[in-house]
């Protein structure tokens, strides 16, 4: 074993994975309940105008972070390590693709929020 070992960048991805895990457990079920169950079944009322207004508020950035960005990185981390366990060889390509998609989804959601906020 060589004496000079390179520090792994894994703490960054592990941190995002951990944060995303908490969000997946706490916020995502609430969002799913609200958007995919309570709304379609008519238990609560939310008009399009109300939804647009809510998404344009400063609080919606928390929603975007907790329900989209961090869970996306959590999922990307699981997919990356799952594919490694399945012996997919192109490790760096998978890493770029997984976190790249999570990053793209986060940027798209944040950008949409920013546009709504500024408008």
């Amino acid at each position, binding site marked *: *074993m060589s004496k000079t*070992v390179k*520090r*792994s960048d*894994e703490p960054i991805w592990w941190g995002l994975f951990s944060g995303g895990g908490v969000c997946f457990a706490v916020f995502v079920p609430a969002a799913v309940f609200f958007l995919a169950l309570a709304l379609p079944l008519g238990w609560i009322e939310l008009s399009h105008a109300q939804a647009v207004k809510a998404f344009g508020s400063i609080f919606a950035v928390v929603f975007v972070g907790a329900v989209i960005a961090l869970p996306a990185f959590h999922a990307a981390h699981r997919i990356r390590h799952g594919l490694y366990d399945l012996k997919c060889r192109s490790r760096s390509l998978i890493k770029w693709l997984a976190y790249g998609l999570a990053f793209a989804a986060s940027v798209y959601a944040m950008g949409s929020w920013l546009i709504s906020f500024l408008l």
Partner: protein
Amino acid sequence: MKTMEVRIQRYLPEQHSEPVVESYQVPFDDSTSVLDALNSIKEEQDSSLSYRWSCRMAICGSCGFMINGEPKLGCKVFLRDYAAAGTLLIEPLAHFPVERDLIVDLEQFMQHLDAIQPYIIKEQANGVSEMTPHKQTPAQMDKYQQFSDCINCGLCYAACPQFGLNPEFIGPGALALAHRYNLDSRDEGRAERMPLIGSEEGAWSCTFVGYCSEVCPQSVDPAAAVNQAKVLSAQDMVLQLFRRKK
């Protein structure tokens, strides 16, 4: 006396081009361990059978085998436990190269163990070691004692799918020992161990499967040690950023 069919994976490099499974009928009672069965086969039926063993009481860590696919110490499991299944398959420990019959080459594990410096490292004043005893409170001892019971049997390596995928992975046993010394109040070697722990082949190759802790005959819980080491490594990374800014 009852008998049971014991199947053993055999590999004699001078005879076999690849491992073969051979079957033996072994008499047993409630006190017959798997190691006793192996000794009985070697004495009564086939003296060419090779395997490691020593203490017979789960202290030396020599007789680790895959027993019906699970990593176990041969002296700690009994034929009576497999009477219901009716058959017993003994194979060499998984993830290690097989040298002969049930004997595996543990060199990779020994190298990892050596690399993490599993001993107390103490700064020496003027190159002279302190002759005073290193005192420790029971609370300080509690922090690491759980991780100090490792007997280097290698069962956790046979259980770890990540070590199976990449033998360069330092692995659960060695990382647990590294953590044991990092937590020891008498030790000053954490800074020397952290680069290896924080590398790709260190704690970060672990995906927290947790099977290592399930198979550990000493209840060391290496999975907990490795994941505590991840926290230390993450802290170390953040601190490093601040140090560089100076």
